[in-house]
């Protein structure tokens, strides 16, 4: 069975830490950073390898900070 692996790249400086993406992730693959960006926001990040590249986080992100990659292996 083909497995799907996803990967996100976050534009950390534009993230406002609203956490809407976290609520939208079906596999609990994202969380908030402990660090802050230069505006003082905690930013979203991948927290494990569960990402399937479903794009949900990117689609609900109001600031469009997430780029999503996906490969089948």
């Amino acid at each position, binding site marked *: 069975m083909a497995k799907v*692996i*996803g*990967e996100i*790249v976050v534009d950390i400086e*534009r993230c*406002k*830490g*609203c*956490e*809407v993406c*976290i*609520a*939208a992730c079906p596999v609990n693959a994202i969380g908030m950073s402990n660090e802050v960006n230069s505006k003082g*926001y905690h930013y979203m990040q991948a927290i494990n*390898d569960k990402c399937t*590249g*479903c*794009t*949900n986080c*990117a*689609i*609900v*992100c*109001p*600031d*469009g*900070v*997430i*780029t*999503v*990659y*996906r*490969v089948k292996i």
Partner: protein
Amino acid sequence: MEENIKKDNIRKEENIVYKKTKLMTDKVLSYCPGCGHGTIHRIIMEVVDEMGIQSETLGIAPVGCAVLAYEFMDIDMQEAAHGRAPAMATAMKRLMPEKYVFSYQGDGDLAAIGTAETIHACNRGENITMIFVNNGIYGMTGGQMAPTTLPGMKSSTSPYGRDIVTMGNPLKITELIAQLPGTYFVTRQAVHTPANVRKTKKAIRKAFENQKLKKGLSFVEVVSNCNSGWKMAPVQSNEWMVENMFPFYPLGDIKIEGELVK
């Protein structure tokens, strides 16, 4: 080690499944964290991008939080006086019928100060797309009561909650304009979940395609949050919206192809 190689292999141009459209500028959005405006802006631009109509699209920004919408959308835009976007859209479309014209307004803009322009543009059946963002509050001026503020809902000008006896009932402008023969497609959507964003985008796409087919006026209401105005965290505000706004402003199509479906 294997993990790193894997990631590098994935992060390749050909593996991108979602990337912010290039029709959104690089300017950092002026909206509060978690505000639906950014998402709505982006999906409008995705539609324009996917339809390949950047050079044929003219947008109108309102007065309100989205007053600077033209900073974020890489298309020709005009900034309206408060409430007048539908009148402007009317003129733009009449003078340049081959262009795609959309107005973007909040609840105070569209349903209070601009009610006359809204109703008459709808009633004339102007061949335009109207985007209506309803968050039940005046966000930009600091959380005052809007025409769409719910009964009992607190705002800075209804600090004890909206009293419908003295402050009137919230206005369901979308249901109202759906009654007019000039409207062709009327729908109410939201952008708080991925599924809703997809639905809203589909509705906006339909609204733009209706212009191409010269079908008349398409009206897309997006019920959205105002976490600053509502004084809630973004995720909490979305939950509050589902529990309180949606029962009063139910999602779904109201009018399709000129026929009321609700």
